């Protein structure tokens, strides 16, 4: 008799616990959302409308470990005069005039023990989109690959690249 009275409460408690679990998972996920950047830079406009290639701005991708965030002078080469009426371009102008660096928030972060170089991957013919997704349609920029070891290894294996630990780990 007692059990019959407790069971409905137990069922409700079970569902409440699950709902709480879902809310907790959501709270853990919230910080992983794409960050709000200081300037809402539109990759699609620069790639599709202006016709710039990735390496037009990320100049060091093919020659160094880092792809490089372009210097403000690269932006200002065109935006000194182009689209100066847009509010986001005016923000850029503000940083430029104040001689302040733009505090971009880094999106693709690898752990400190990983030694990754853009140069080698581009030399091997890996397209930027393999790791960064379809940036020409991405607004805002977000991380679309896990960048976890299993994912790296999967690609290395399928392309016959090295899987030696020391190749990637410090």
């Amino acid at each position: 008799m007692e059990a019959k009275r407790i069971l409905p409460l137990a069922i409700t408690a079970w569902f409440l616990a699950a709902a709480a679990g879902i809310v907790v998972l959501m709270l853990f996920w919230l910080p992983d959302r794409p960050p709000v950047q200081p300037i809402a830079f539109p990759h699609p406009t620069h790639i599709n409308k202006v016709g710039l290639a990735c390496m037009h701005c990320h100049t060091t991708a093919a020659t160094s470990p880092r792809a490089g965030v372009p210097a403000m002078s690269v932006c200002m080469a065109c935006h000194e005069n182009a689209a100066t009426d847009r509010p986001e371009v005016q923000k850029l102008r503000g940083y430029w005039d104040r001689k302040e660096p733009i505090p971009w928030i880094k999106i693709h972060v690898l752990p400190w023990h990983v030694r990754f170089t853009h140069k080698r991957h581009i030399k091997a013919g890996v397209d930027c989109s393999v790791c960064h997704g379809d940036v020409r349609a991405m607004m805002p920029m977000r991380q679309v690959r896990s960048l976890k070891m299993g994912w790296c290894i999967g690609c290395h294996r399928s392309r016959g690249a090295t899987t030696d630990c020391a190749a990637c780990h410090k």
Partner: protein
Amino acid sequence: MLDNLFLPPAAEHLPLVGPLMVLLLLFHLPWLGTVLVTSGLSLAFRKKDALLSTRLMDLAVSNPGAWWIFGVLPPIGLLLLSGQFFHGTPIFMPAYYANILVLMFPAYLLLYLYRRTRDIRLGGPGHLLLLASCWFLISTLDLGFFPERFFFESSILPLLFSIQQAVHFLLFSALAALFSGAAILFFYFRWSESRLSGEEGELKLLRILGGALALGGALAVPAALVGELYNLPLPATSTTVFITALLMTVFAWPAAQLSFYMLKNGHVRFAPCVFGSGILLFGLFGFHMVHLQSRAGAEHLRALAQNAEAERQKETSAREALMAKNMVPDAALGEKIFTTKCSACHSFDKKVVGPAYNDVVPKYAADPDALAAFIRNPVKKNPAFPAMPGQGLTELEVQSVARFLLDRAGKK
């Protein structure tokens, strides 16, 4: 290459693909889950209680139309829609759906024959094949929101066996158990067309079985949801995903409570409510899966829309070029284009982003076609300036701008 079998989706059709997939999943999954659960139970009770076994098998498939409407047409529709949704991705998704059909249709045939002959040599393999095709279907839906696997998914094993996939299958099984339990109670005890008449003792086992399935399924739903959310890939996650999961938990709760009361009090009064919440839960599950897919493939969908738009513009400009052959370049039109497009970067008398027209245009005075060719397809000439992007002008517009620039730059 296989992608050529499918036309790329038109811009207007693209927003319809997702909702259509949800609709097809809503038609397919509840029925598929019910057939899976009831055929398994029918095989289990085959010797112990032959009548019960027959009733279980008859539940979802006694009407031949059901095979077609819920079993055959939706997966074919999903195959076609996946060809549109995943057009241009490194994997050929329709092939995965085709594999499902290869497993599913023989399973249907074997189960159909089992229902007629009661021969376990047909029912056993039929049930196993159906189980395999459900597993494959869930893995394929999973692959849809794992774009990082598209690039090197050469082996089928990691696709079929991953924790995330197992958790999704658990969620599907829980919903299938809930729905088939509710369907047993609803169709055999409440629905006037198919209500069973017999002694209470004879029907008791069927009623308890229905109630227990509904209760067990409803209880497993929230656990499977928490496991699923814990394992979701980052690009597929969004607030909507969590809210859908919360809604599913909210709707599974009354199903569990009411099934429990029906079991406890030995009646079937709430069967329609539990059945309704089963349909609702499967609807939310379908939406959940398609939303994950659209979220993970958001950029791919946007790129497809851009391609469709570019294709349309190409056709329009080809048509206009044909018309422009008979039209005379018009300097007034050229001026209008200059003010809306060119003047953002160019001025006649001073350097802006690009060079001053008065410095460069006179070079083309003797060769207007070369100027038109440059406007049509700009190439970098002077390293001191950034490359000029193409402006997507029609032939008449190109000629008109060239005429306007030559007229105006020549005058000063």
